[in-house]
């Protein structure tokens, strides 16, 4: 009970912090803060999606960048075709991601552990190379979006703050959805299938179907991140699907502490903030970033949230 309460409090605190940020930015006269924060929110959505299967289903996908890319390309492709509505972009991204996740998930779930990691990477790489070869959309060079997606037929998202709040609203909605999923019977079966697949099978649940469903949901959520990130950057290229992005998402989730949705959001925030902040300090920020990662792992067993938990012990 108290654990749930604290998680609710932490979520409230984090999201209201995000909600207040544009006002802080205005006060400081630094409109760029909103730009970075939108990027953070986009990655937070993708990390949240990954944590759903990684933290609860024990499925370490090393190919989630593919779904981010599918979302991003649905913006580019539909925009070029003259369809500019955000809802349509989201739907197209989700449809594409569901299809891709169904096919690749069904094959990938035959494997376990590191093999699962590598087979998801393989499928993401195939998607990456497909878009690299897609000359109609600039191939490797990518395409510049002429404008952001429209909302209700109006170019509302052109305003950085509106885009920020829309992204935040989507993040909060997806967070609540993810929490509901993990608390539902479906979520418990998923966790059970991770802990003891044989027993789940014995009591009449086929883990495969549950895992595949979770994998598909997670992919669809990650494509939403892609749609928002494409709008934020105003540019779409296969770089969204690079395996680096998949790796960064895993780092964000593990950094925040796996299997506690909010940790994924916090992990994305910390990773990107560190990147920005260390970047301001030195050209060799990667050295410091790497050191911090190593130290965090050596000092804590549960990501950054574990660091703080330890201190609470008497």
């Amino acid at each position: 009970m108290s654990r749930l309460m604290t998680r609710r409090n932490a979520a409230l605190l984090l999201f209201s912090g995000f909600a207040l940020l544009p006002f802080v930015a205005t006060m400081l006269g630094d409109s760029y803060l909103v730009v970075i924060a939108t990027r953070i929110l986009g990655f937070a959505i993708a990390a949240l999606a990954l944590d759903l299967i990684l933290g609860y289903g024990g499925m370490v996908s090393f190919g989630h960048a593919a779904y981010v890319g599918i979302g991003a390309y649905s913006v580019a492709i539909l925009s070029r075709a003259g369809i500019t509505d955000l809802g349509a972009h989201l739907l197209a991204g989700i449809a594409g991601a569901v299809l891709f996740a169904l096919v690749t998930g069904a094959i990938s779930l035959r494997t376990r552990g590191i093999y699962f990691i590598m087979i998801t990477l393989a499928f993401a790489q195939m998607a990456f190379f497909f878009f690299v070869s897609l000359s109609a959309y600039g191939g490797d060079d990518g395409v510049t979006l002429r404008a952001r997606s429209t909302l209700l037929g109006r170019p509302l998202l052109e305003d950085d703050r509106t885009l920020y709040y829309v992204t935040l609203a989507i993040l909060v909605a997806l967070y609540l959805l993810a929490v509901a999923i993990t608390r539902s019977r479906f979520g418990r079966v998923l966790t059970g299938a991770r802990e003891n697949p044989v027993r789940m099978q014995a009591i009449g649940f086929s883990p495969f179907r549950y895992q595949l469903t979770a994998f598909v949901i997670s992919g669809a959520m990650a494509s939403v991140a892609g749609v928002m990130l494409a709008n934020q950057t105003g540019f779409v290229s296969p770089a969204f699907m690079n395996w680096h992005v998949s790796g960064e998402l895993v780092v964000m989730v593990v950094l925040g502490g796996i299997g506690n949705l909010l940790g994924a959001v916090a992990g994305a925030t910390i990773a990107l903030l560190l990147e920005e902040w260390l970047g301001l300090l030195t050209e060799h920020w990667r050295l410091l970033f790497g050191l911090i990662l190593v130290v965090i792992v050596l000092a804590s067993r549960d990501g950054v949230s574990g660091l703080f938990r330890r201190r609470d012990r008497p």
Partner: protein
Amino acid sequence: MTSLFLLQLLNGVQFGILLFLIAAGLTLVFGIMDFVNLAHGVIYMVGAYLAVSFTQMTGSYGLGLLLTLPATLLIGLVLELLVFRRLYDRPHLDQVLATFGLVMIVTEGVQIIWGAAPLSVAMPEALSGSIPLIGQMRYPVFRLVVIGAGLATALGLYLIIGHTRIGMRLRAGATSRAMVSALGVDIHKLFTVIFAFGAMLAGFAGAMVAPILTVDPGMGEQVLILAFVVIVIGGIGSVRGAFAGALLVGIVDTMGRSFGPILLRLVMEPAAAGQAGRVLAPMLVYILMAAILAARPTGLFGQKT
């Protein structure tokens, strides 16, 4: 056509053996210690950079190569002592995070020390030529040396693991750490040795490729994914599997690149075949891996879990 086919086959084998050199240390550490080491690629890179520096210092590639081996062994020991030792009983993802951090540190460190410009080692004069092979086609001598070194490494590992006391302990340690400890073997010391040895293998691979490939700050990352593909195809922990996986990846990649478009032309328009060939060629290795894992979820030589 036949001679070109044979030559490309040889090229594929050669590329595969290059991959095996890199993957061997990775599969040892992964298989025996159950440790996911993303930093393997950067140790390979450091090996190549050290070979460049030592070759410049001594004026001889052979000496540079010889000096690189103990240097990377030492680096392996230090890293094991500082970082890896504390991670053995941790979940894989913690190991991923920590070694990912190491990758960033080493990559940036290498750029600070050696700069970002690509470097190279001059080919030793005696090995720099090419020999006639079939008809007009020639084959670089150094590539034959790489093939020889890879085969020697494979044979050496096979003998060590299969036919020596330390190999027996390794195999036992991989199956049951507790039992080996109970038998009075210091498992930590054993792991330290394996890890340092794995690092030295990576360093050896780096030094071997320095005369043919560029030495730049991205080289470790480029091969890391391919090395993982190789050991996953082969089955983790199996040196035999890594060897087979490496050859398979090398041959499929090379043959696909050169003969893929020709095969496709049999079934479609030339222009479309060219286009499809270009799309498919870089995917081939991944298609191969996905297909193998779909059929055999623990790789070719992996143990059923």
